[in-house]
């Protein structure tokens, strides 16, 4: 409902953009009827919702293709990008976060902390351009833009991964530092368990719980970043689709993308909650008590 109100209030008449400013009134009227803009706002809204319930998001004003089909066909590309970014960010973030927590105050800790706060401060659209400049325009080892296989995917994934890596590393560090002070770690040490297995079993298992949440919540920022990154790298995904919709005032497209993005975000959060129950028995007990 909110997205509908938002897009309805957009300035600029799509009909004019569609047929051009100079077309005759008759043509404008015809097109207006075609896309249903001649009906009142309320009726448009009711029509839209009843379509939406049926899983239909209407058609793009420009291509006249079904928005839902377009999103469906572009979605795997965005997902691939997000997966690629996670594949880079999650292991490296956890590993380096752990490293910097275990050697707290050391050189590696300082370097990792500095680098991660740096990555959090660099805007993705700029780091994307710099990565593109360096790897594909100067070194010429990877293609600068386009959609396709792994060689096309690597740079945008890397761009998306930078802030995600930073967040994960920071959270892992704080979380490990938190767990290390717990009594059961001292107990484990007192029992003479090897340091390496304390790290792997006791610390990591407990420290990873907040990290799981952050990885899930970060999905929202993947969606944010996808709009920018896909635009820069010419990646044919939902993010670029959204951007094109905004530029052309193509309401069904903007609405569809925002709705799908938000639904996805909410679903991921739900999924994280479910995973939580499996990872952390304490949550389960609390839930049962209620």
């Amino acid at each position, binding site marked *: 409902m909110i997205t509908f109100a938002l897009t309805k209030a957009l300035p600029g008449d799509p009909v004019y953009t569609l047929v051009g400013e100079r077309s005759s009134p008759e043509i404008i009227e015809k097109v207006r009827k075609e896309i249903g803009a001649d009906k009142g706002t309320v009726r448009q809204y009711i029509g839209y919702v009843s379509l939406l319930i049926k899983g239909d998001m209407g058609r793009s004003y420009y291509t006249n293709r079904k928005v839902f089909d377009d999103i469906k066909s572009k979605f795997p590309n965005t997902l691939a990008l997000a997966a690629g970014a996670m594949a880079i960010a999650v292991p490296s973030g956890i590993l380096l976060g752990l490293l910097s927590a275990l050697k707290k105050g050391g050189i590696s800790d300082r370097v990792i902390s500095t680098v991660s*706060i740096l990555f959090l401060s660099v805007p993705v659209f700029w780091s994307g351009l710099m990565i593109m400049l360096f790897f594909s325009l100067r070194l010429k080892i990877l293609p600068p833009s386009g959609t396709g296989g792994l060689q096309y995917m690597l740079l945008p994934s890397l761009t998306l991964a930078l802030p995600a890596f930073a967040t994960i590393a920071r959270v892992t560090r704080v979380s490990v530092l938190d767990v290390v002070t717990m009594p059961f770690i001292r107990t484990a040490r007192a029992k003479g368990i090897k340091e390496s297995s304390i790290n792997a079993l006791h610390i990591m298992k407990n420290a990873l719980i907040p990290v799981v949440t952050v990885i899930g919540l970060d999905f929202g920022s993947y969606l944010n970043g996808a709009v920018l990154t896909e635009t820069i790298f010419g990646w044919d995904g939902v993010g670029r689709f959204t951007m094109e919709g905004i530029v052309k005032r193509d309401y069904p497209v903007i609405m569809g993308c925002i709705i799908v*993005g*938000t639904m996805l975000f909410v679903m991921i959060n739900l999924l994280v909650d479910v995973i939580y129950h499996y990872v952390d028995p304490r949550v389960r007990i609390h839930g049962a008590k209620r």
Partner: protein
Amino acid sequence: MVPSGRISACILLCITILSVISPALTRYSPDAIDLDSLRLPPSLQHPLGTDNKGRDILTRVMYGGRISIAVSVVAALLSMGIGLFVGLMSGYIGGKVDTIFMALVDLILAFPSLLLAIGVSVLFPPGIYTVMIALSSVGWASFARLMRGQVLSLKESPFVEAAKAVGCGDLRIVLVHLLPQCIPLALVMTGMKLGGYILTESALSFLGLGAQPPTATWGSMISSNRAYINSAPWMVLSPGVMIALTALCFNLLGDDLRDKFDIGNNRDVK
């Protein structure tokens, strides 16, 4: 430890001062087109080079800084104001008001923030006020939540009870007793969030939803010059460095503030 917070505060002060007094420092106009000096690499006349229309990049970066920083700061303060208001209302009155406000907060936090900001900013004609509105309409929610927690815990404290016993009205309790207790926390949180505001502001102007050409902002300088990234990388380099530097300083400052005031360590609701 290195006092990174203080150093970043100094750098931020320098950036702000340089931006504010920029007309006195440069002999170029930020928007004047000079067709004799298109895309010049950095030199003595143009320390950061010139752009596609022959405009001095250093000048534009300084003028752009004015807009980018001003917009972010105003938006952050605006969010703080709305957040304070909603948080105080919600925490103090409780009941239905609380339920409705918090549902709204949850709703806003459920949206991916940049998508929502884009959604809001396409409502209005693009410009700096639009960006301010977009940023604050997304940003107030987290302030409201924190303030509500603060008010909830303050509400039970003896001094509020004493005020009530002396016969203070609700309005007086909220304005005179609760508000001053919330403002320091709100200001600290503003400092923590400003880095994010700078980044989102530049993202919106990168997408062409912010101040319109020829006005320079850091984000729009990057987007309008990115076509020349291979032949003239300096045009994209310096605004990006400025965004990153400013955001970095705000983030470091924010970290420092958080450590000092111990925010976000779940002392929300007791």
